[in-house]
């Protein structure tokens, strides 16, 4: 049983326009094993699995399921073959209940018997140890509940081959442990589980074998017990990389931004920030960690003047000792017109920060288009800026007028960061600056941030990878449920410590006290 092949991929190729996402991938998955599919962002992991789950159809190559050739043209074909995929972005209907989501798309009698459906859901939950309320609406669920629902949905359909696309990206360390326990239960039940991930320690912890993709090509499959993180990382990126991110010593720390008791409510009246206080210093990188949706976005947007319902204060101190400026209550435009240089890289690069159909030049003038003589646009300066950003950051684009939507994720990010840095900010806030970027581009971004730090800019870095936060930042502030649950010194803190703060709701008191001394000691370091 153990060595039987459940899935065999043979020379799978998939192209999108001129981009080749998968190039002749040949690999297999055994029954009753956990296979980790490892690769950098953009290495084609998700595309490959989407062909197994019927979202895409391969341009070339064949697929065999349990030794039988299969043509998977639709998700329905995939279900019929016992393949179920849990996507990174949950495929759930918000206004439906858990049970309705589970029964969606299934064959059966034309009238629905919801009671029988709920019975079966309870049976599955008991077997594997899930906690799920079949009548709960999805829009009321937490991220971890939604993920549980996705897995139950797949099991309800009798899947034997489960594909999980970066399942831990949105979970706390504790939730991750619970998920891994369920995965082990399923493996013991003889199911094949494919986990897409780029987190090496998780690969080591959960998988039996590791298959590695690089730039759309299959590299190798290793027994996990024969591998270690370093060999995996090398196989993944294909070149020797320094695992250490440069962290220059913070110098000449001066108070730059003082935030105190910042609170904010969203459109539904639910608090998103609860009395956040911290100080950001010029010459350091302050990391902000937390499970996604814990107020990171709102915090940055409040400071940038993009949130309407903010109370509390955030005061900007000028490097030259000028009159401090209260930022709360000002619009983004007012903040700029007061000469306050506050730069902000929003979370969603194209949705917020750039205009996809415009070229680099037009995007460069997004914040400055109003300058100069009235009525008409002045394109010469933005064009020069665009060219200098392109040349200095190595943006790959046919021309500065090519719509930025056509550029790759890394290049888009460079355009955005380049524009923000060009404003010579005193505070530079970035959110998920390296999301979706390959390792080399990520390091280029880290270098840019470090350069700003050396110039005396107060850099605020919202990140999701704790390892990076620990290596890049000087201090890390952890948000949990909209409140500060801790501020730690990044050079001494451990991953577990941060993981605990991430789940400690309302634990502000002990947390902040751990952070402030670290700061006061900043001058001594």
């Amino acid at each position, binding site marked *: 049983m153990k060595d039987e092949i459940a899935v065999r991929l043979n020379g799978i190729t998939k192209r999108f326009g001129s981009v080749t996402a998968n190039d002749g991938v040949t690999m297999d998955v055994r029954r009753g094993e956990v296979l980790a599919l490892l690769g950098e962002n953009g290495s084609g992991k998700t595309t490959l699995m989407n062909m197994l789950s019927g979202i895409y159809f391969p341009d070339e190559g064949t697929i065999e399921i349990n030794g039988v050739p*299969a*043509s998977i043209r639709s998700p329905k074909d995939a279900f019929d073959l016992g393949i179920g995929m849990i996507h990174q972005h949950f495929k759930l209907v918000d206004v439906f209940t858990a049970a309705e989501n589970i029964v969606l798309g299934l064959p059966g009698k034309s009238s629905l018997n919801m009671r029988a459906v709920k019975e079966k859901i309870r049976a599955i939950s008991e077997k594997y140890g899930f906690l799920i309320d079949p009548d709960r609406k999805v829009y009321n669920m937490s991220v971890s509940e939604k993920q549980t629902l996705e897995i139950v949905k797949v099991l309800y359909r009798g899947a034997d081959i489960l594909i999980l696309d970066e399942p831990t990206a949105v979970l706390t360390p504790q939730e991750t442990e619970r998920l891994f326990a369920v995965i082990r239960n399923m493996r013991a039940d003889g199911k094949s589980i494919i986990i897409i991930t780029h987190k090496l320690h998780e690969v080591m912890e959960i998988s039996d074998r590791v298959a590695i993709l690089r730039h759309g090509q299959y590299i190798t499959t290793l027994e996990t017990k024969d591998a270690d993180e370093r060999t995996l990382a090398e196989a993944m990126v294909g070149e020797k990389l320094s695992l250490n991110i440069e962290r220059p010593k913070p110098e000449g720390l001066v108070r730059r931004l003082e935030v105190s008791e910042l609170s904010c409510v969203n459109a539904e009246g639910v608090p998103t920030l609860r009395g956040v206080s911290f100080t950001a210093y010029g010459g350091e990188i302050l990391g902000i960690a937390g499970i996604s949706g814990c107020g990171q976005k709102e915090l940055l947007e409040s400071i940038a003047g993009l949130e309407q319902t903010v109370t509390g204060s955030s005061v900007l101190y000028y490097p030259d000792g000028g009159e401090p400026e209260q930022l709360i209550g000002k619009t983004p435009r007012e*903040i700029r017109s007061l000469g306050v240089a506050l730069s902000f890289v929003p979370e969603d690069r194209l949705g917020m920060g750039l*205009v*996809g159909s415009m070229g680099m030049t037009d995007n460069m003038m997004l914040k400055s288009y109003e300058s100069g003589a009235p009525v008409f*646009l002045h394109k010469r300066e933005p064009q020069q800026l665009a060219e200098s950003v392109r040349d200095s950051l190595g943006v790959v684009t046919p021309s500065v007028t090519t719509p930025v939507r056509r550029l790759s994720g890394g290049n888009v990010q460079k355009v955005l960061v380049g524009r923000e840095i060009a404003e010579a900010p005193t505070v530079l806030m970035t959110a998920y600056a390296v999301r979706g970027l390959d390792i080399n581009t990520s390091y280029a971004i880290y270098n840019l941030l470090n350069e700003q730090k050396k110039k005396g800019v107060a850099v605020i870095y919202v990140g999701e990878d704790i390892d990076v936060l620990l290596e890049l930042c000087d201090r890390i502030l952890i948000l949990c449920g909209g409140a500060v649950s801790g501020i730690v010194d990044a050079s001494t803190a451990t991953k577990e410590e941060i993981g605990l703060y991430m789940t400690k709701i309302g634990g502000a008191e002990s947390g902040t006290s751990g952070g402030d001394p670290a700061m006061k000691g900043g001058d001594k370091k």
Partner: protein
Amino acid sequence: MKADAKREPALRLVKRDSISPARAVIVRAVAIIAALLVCGIFFITVTDSSIIEIYSAMVSGTFRNSITINTFFREACMLLIIAIGLAPAFKMSFWNVGGQGQVLAGGMAAAMWLFYLGNKLPNAAILPLMFVSAAIGGGIWAIIPAVFRVKFSTNETLFTLMMNYIAIQLVKYLRISWSPIHALGMIQRKSGSLPALFGNADGLIYVIAAVGVVLMYIYMNKTKQGYEISVVGEAPNTARYAGISELKVILRTAFLSGAVCGIAGFLYVSAIDHTISETMGGGYGFTAVIVAWLAKFNPIFMTLISMLISFVRSGSSEIVSRNTTTLDSSIANINIGIFLFFMLGCEFFLNYKVVFRGRKDAKK
């Protein structure tokens, strides 16, 4: 194995990165010819004419003499003016389908001067007043839905539609209360008629349309306000981030959009109809939506498409006039509908490439 291979999709779609201008012209030309063919076949089935008779009638109906040529250009200009009015709103993702209502609102505002002061003021005084109030009237008609869109995100598509009917009822009311006896006639006044230019009564319409096209092109592509429209339309979050006031831009653009349609209403009142009626602007509100959309808001393309549609209209009415017993003027609407569907459909072939089974799409 063989059976499975068969299940590979027979044809798939591949998105094009870009298309060469020459190819784009060919695709559009094929669509226009196909539409002309379908229209021709349609005419053959409803008349007894041959295909050559049909097409020659369409051409001669348009270009036979100075009157038909004039009508052709005038109708194209009116459609064009409404389309360039709607374009900035669409570019801002504001679905203004209330062109008809805005034309009427502008027409009412213009006719008001004509009715009350048409015998008292000279042309030089009343025409500017009519022009400005028509622009304001049309602008107000468009800004009302915009306010609700900004404040409550109310669906502007249906709102602007309903504003059409409110305008229609207002016109009906005014027709009865202003002119109880001559309800259907012209409002005959000494002044308030657009003077002829170079001996052509419609001359100023051409000038206004041409100036409008140029101004709108500059406005959309070269000005700060045009830039703001692009940002708000495509990336509202980016606009918020950049500190562009969405409220201000949407209200301003909606007003501008309505104002241009209002000016079209002014032209109907002062140069074409010399009265108001609820059929003024004859369904151009919707046609103009499609014109603006097909032209991707490019005023130059809008000019070409407006002329094409005007040609179909005048050609159709010529065939109707030769078969008055069996056909009526609504046939033009069918032909325009056929044209619009072909033009809409051909957009697909500009953006996508169809790949057949077994053929490798190795090259772009």
